[in-house]
Structures are given as C-alpha cells and as structure tokens.
C-alpha cells in the first residue's frame, strides 16, 4: 500500500515536471522566426519512418550504427515492459501480464533481455570510444566540459538501467520457485534464467525480495530521471529526431532561401514593379540573423535535435584543415544561446517581456565571423547529419546579417561584389565576355 502511494506520487511528479520541461522547449522553439513548412506529407512521413525510426543515415558508418541500433531498439522495447511496471505500480499487482500472456510473455521479456544485453555491450564500447580510444570527433574543443560529461552520464544511466532490469528479472526467477503465489511464472527468460541463479542463487528469500524491489524501483526511477534529464541534455534527440525529420525542408538542397523583400526592392529599382514608398519614420530593416529570434523555428528545432555526434564536423573541410569552424559547435551555440534567452525571459517582468528581447548579447558573441567565413557551403555537414539537421542554414543567415545589415564581412569580397554590380562578372576584366570565341 505504501509502495502504491509512493509510486503514484513519484509518477505524477515525474510526468508533471517533464510536461513542464517539454513545454518550455516547445515555447523556446517558437521564439524563432516564422517559416511555413508544409506540403508533401508522403515524403515527410517517409523521412520519419526511414531516417528517424529506421536510422537510415546512421548506417553510413555501419559499426557505430549497429551499436547505436542495439541501444535504440532495447530502449524502444523496454517501454513495453514499462507498461506492465506502470500498471503493476498503480494496481499493486506483480507482473500482471505473465499469467495472461503465457508463452508470449516469456518471448517478449526474453527478447527485451537479449536486446538489453546487446545494448550493454554497445554501451560499454561507447564509453570506451569516448574515454580510452578518444575518437577524434568526441574530443573537439566544443566538447570540453559539460557536453562530454553529458554524453558519459547518459551512458552511465544506461548501465544502471540495464543492471536494474537484470536484478529485477534475475531475482524474480528465483522467487518464482520459492513463492509461486506472489511471483507468477514467467517461463524461462533468455538471460535472467541463467544470470539470476548465477548471481543471486546463494541469497536468502528475504534478501531476494528486497533486491527484486530495488531492481524494480531503480528501473522505474532511472526511466523517470531520464525523462526529466532529456530536456537539459543532448539526449533530447531521441524525441526530437522525429519531428525534425518530419519538418525537414524538402526544397532542392542547393536552393538558398529567397529574400522576397530584397527581390521586390531590386525589382522596383529595375522598374519591373511599381515602386512602394517606404512608410515614414520606420527604422531601417535588418536582414539575416543576429540572434535566435532571427533564425527560423526549424533551425531552433535543429539545434535542440542535435546529439553532438560530430559527424558534421568530422566531414567539414574547413574543420579538417584546422580552421575554427565546426558545424556542430554552431548548432550547440544556437541551442545554448536559446537556453540563456529563455532563462532570462522567464525571470523578466510582464513589461519587459512585451518589449523586444535585449540583453546586449547575440549569437555573434559565441559564433565568430572567423568561423562563419571559413564555410565553403559544400554541404558535407548537411549530408552527414543522421537526423537531417542543416547547419549551413544558420551560417549563411549570419553571413547575410554581417554583409547586409552590418556592411561588414571579409574585405576580400568587396571587389567581387563591386565587380558583379558594375560589370556583371566576378572579376573586373577588360575583355569582352565572348573574347574566347575570337582566337
């Protein structure tokens, strides 16, 4: 009875807090600039199914992809077991599905156990890759401090979760023989039927009962902790990869977003359309992106979907040759800035909230022009991202701010701009365009 009450309280708190956290993420994403992303729902669902659910792009590197797939599928299927845990917790029963499902129950739980074992192996390999073998992409400057700890913390949580599952199931197997009235038969479980007797065979019934409860609660609490850890972690990708795949832009990859305001202004300069008088006293418009508010909400969703795997940075020609640019860092900086903005906003008065946000800082405080200027727009980062994040989009949007609003940017570009404007060619050349036909 006490357990039941405790369970209900913990569950309500865990879900209540999580809902609040996820709501905060949602409203943060909505701070971005509006962009209509719709149409072709067929392709969108295909992306969700293949890229997010099926992890198609992960398999560009099959070894980490396979290991990741073990953890992912174990995680997905463990949720089936969680359904029983939730029902048991609320009703005070024990393994209520076991007698109902019989052999099928044995199959499902065994399947989860095998996947959990594979996930454990994968988790250990992942920990080694981050600590002992120090894979290059996990040791870039932007990974120093919290991001590295974040990655390891999740893997440690994974180990705890799997340990809890096997403690819970392993002790249960032994208790089924000692106290069949309270511990319904689950059949022979693929891992626990061997592991249980081997690890816990010498323990007394009382100790087993306590250990079973410890495993059960630890499983539950790890899942709840995980749920509430997601919104402050790179691990949010397990949820956001799905909407991110759905909303990924379907326009041609090579098409930079058009700027209709500028197009129309140029058209009116060229006499192609009626000139519109700018409204009196209005401030000069700003173009491009200076802060998170200027980026499309999709880019902010991208930033929250990033799991910091660094495939983008590992493929970036600028980063490969020692330049400061790292597409992953750009996405992380956007997310971190968004977090700062939302925290500051939350503590503001209603009056301050009504005014445009200004804390004297912007994205340019973390993403330097040197980084932006190193990009070759080659889209290797776009190609590499397993969850369809587009790091090129914010880089080019920030370049637009520099050049259009600030009139800054690399001075080397000025002759190119002038030349195109004055002579219609990227270089100022005296020759005629068809001079090559004359020899």
């Amino acid at each position, binding site marked *: 009875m006490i357990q039941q009450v405790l369970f209900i309280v913990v569950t309500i708190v865990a879900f209540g807090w999580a809902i609040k956290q996820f709501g905060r993420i949602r409203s943060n994403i909505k701070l971005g600039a509006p962009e209509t992303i719709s149409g072709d729902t067929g392709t969108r669902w295909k992306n969700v199914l293949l890229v997010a659910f099926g992890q198609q792009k992960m398999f560009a590197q099959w070894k980490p992809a396979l290991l990741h797939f073990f953890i992912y599928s174990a995680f997905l299927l463990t949720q089936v077991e969680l359904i029983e845990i939730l029902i048991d917790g609320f009703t005070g029963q024990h393994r209520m599905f076991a007698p109902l499902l019989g052999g099928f129950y044995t199959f499902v739980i065994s399947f989860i156990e095998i996947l959990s074992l594979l996930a454990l192996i994968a988790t250990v390999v992942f920990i080694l890759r981050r600590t002992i073998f120090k894979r290059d992409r996990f040791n870039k400057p932007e990974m120093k401090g919290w991001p590295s700890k974040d990655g390891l913390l999740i893997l440690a949580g994974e180990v705890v979760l799997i340990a809890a599952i096997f403690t819970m199931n392993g002790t249960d197997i032994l208790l089924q023989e000692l106290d069949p009235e309270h511990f319904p038969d689950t059949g022979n479980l693929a891992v626990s039927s061997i592991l249980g007797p081997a690890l816990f065979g010498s323990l007394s019934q009382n100790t087993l009962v306590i250990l079973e409860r410890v495993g059960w609660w630890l499983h539950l609490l790890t899942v709840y902790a995980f749920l509430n850890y997601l919104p402050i972690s790179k691990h949010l990708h397990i949820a956001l990869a799905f909407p991110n795949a759905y909303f990924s832009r379907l326009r041609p990859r090579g098409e930079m977003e058009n700027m209709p305001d500028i197009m129309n202004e140029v058209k009116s300069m060229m006499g192609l359309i009626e000139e519109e008088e700018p409204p009196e006293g209005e401030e000069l418009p700003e173009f491009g992106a200076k802060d998170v508010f200027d980026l499309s909400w999709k880019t902010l969703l991208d930033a929250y979907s990033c799991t910091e795997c660094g495939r983008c940075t590992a493929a970036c020609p600028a980063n490969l040759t020692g330049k400061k640019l790292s597409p992953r860092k750009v996405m992380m900086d956007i997310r971190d800035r968004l977090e700062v903005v939302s925290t500051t906003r939350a503590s503001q008065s209603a009056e301050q909230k009504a005014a445009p946000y200004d804390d004297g800082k912007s994205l340019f405080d973390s993403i330097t022009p040197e980084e932006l200027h190193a*990009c070759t727009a080659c889209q290797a980062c776009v190609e590499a991202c397993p969850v369809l994040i587009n790091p090129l989009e914010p880089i080019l949007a920030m370049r637009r701010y520099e050049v259009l609003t600030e009139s800054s940017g690399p001075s080397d570009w000025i002759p190119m701009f002038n030349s195109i404007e004055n002579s219609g060619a*990227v270089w100022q050349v005296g020759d005629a365009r068809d001079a*090559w036909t004359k020899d």
Partner: protein
Amino acid sequence: MNVPLLADVAAEGKSIDILFWVGCAGSFDARAQKVTKAFARILNHVGVNYAILGEEELCTGDPARRAGNEFVFQMTALQNVETLNGYGVKKIVTACPHCFNTLKNEYPALGGSYEVIHHTQLLQELINTGKLKLKGGGTFKGKRITYHDSCYLGRVNRIYEAPRKVLEALDVELVEMKRCKSKGLCCGAGGAQMFKEDEPGNKRINAERVDEALNTGAKTIAANCPFCLTMLTDGVTAKGKEDTVEVYDLSELIADSLPPGQE
C-alpha cells in the same frame, strides 16, 4: 572559332535547342577558357543547335548570394532572368556547377524556370544516343584517372553517375578516392572562398584534396567545375607535381578523343 550568339540567331528569326551558359570563369579565366573551347568544339562537332549569350550574360550571382550579399545577387540574377525570358530560353547547358545550381534551383523563385543540365550530362546523353563517337584507342585509353566530385554537381544536386559514364566511354581506368560521391571532399573554393584568403588553419583544403587524389596513383585528375580546376591545379603545383600530374575537365578529355572532322 564559330560560336553563334543568341542575339544573332534571334535576329535571323531562328531558334535554338539549347543555350550554352558560359559563366564568368569559362569566359574570363585563362584555364577555364580552354574548357569552354573544348566544350564548344564538341558541340560544333556533333552539330548541336546552340548559342551563347555573349555580352548579355551576367554572373548568376552564386558567390554574392553565398557570401551573404542578397542585393548584388538579386540585381544580377533578375537581369539574367529578364534576358533569358526575353529570348524564351527553354533549355540551358553549362560547364559550371555553381551556375548550374543557381540557374536550376534558385532562378525559379525569381520567375525564371528552365530545364538546366550540366555539360557532363549533355556529354553522357550525346555518347549514349550515339551522336558523339570517340576515336578508338583515344588519348586516355587505359590511363589511370581519378575523378573529383564537385560539391554543387555531386552532393548538392546528386549527379554522380553522368560524369563517371563519360569516363567509362573513354575507356580509362577510373580509381576512386576514399572520399567520393556524397562524401566527396570540397576543393576549398565554394561558398565564395574562391574570392578570399583562407581563414587561419593548418592546411589548405585543396592541398588535403590533392594529397588524396595523388594517393590513388593517378596521373590525371578529372574535374567538372572551373573553380575545382583552379584549386586542384594550384594544389598540384604546390606539391611540385605539375610536370607529372595533370588536371583536366571532362570535356577536355572528350575533345581530345574526338575523331578528326570539321569543327
């Protein structure tokens, strides 16, 4: 060289099947001009009904747009759209993947919709349909060649096969670099890098790419983009290999293997 101007063709009341968009590099850069001439020779050899815009052609605006200067992009692009629509151009071929991408993917939003193909696609089509026949035992037959995917033809527009089919027709021994097709490494010129100094780093991007190309043991590097051509040639020179390793555009390899005939 006999290269028809669209203005002249239109003045005679005739029409063309395809416009050859030369681009700034193809028009003015000494190295890229050779590619332009090679491609024009092929068009003349096959008897394609084409023309160029000449002085009426302007920069597509790609480097300005990617540098962030939307004003300059719109100014040049809208003028081009006016010109192209004025002539009623339906189909365009270009030897520059940056022009290709901008004409194909970015001009529709500005009111200019055309069928745009890259010159390697036209070459493949001409070879496939038998209109372009190469002399047996061409200059490059059996030679080890590596092919560099430009970002804007390859990864961005996902055209990997057409240029490789063209190389196949030349009967060369194609050796791929480790980073090829969708994983191809940039030459370092894109995103308007061509027009500025590198940001501080420990290596030039073209040096990294040339190292990879030389590792294949190929003495010929085939490219499909005038900017890649410049970057790779510079990279080869920086390695001091300019006497033993050559960088060519695909159309030059084809033009070299044309059977004798009128041009």
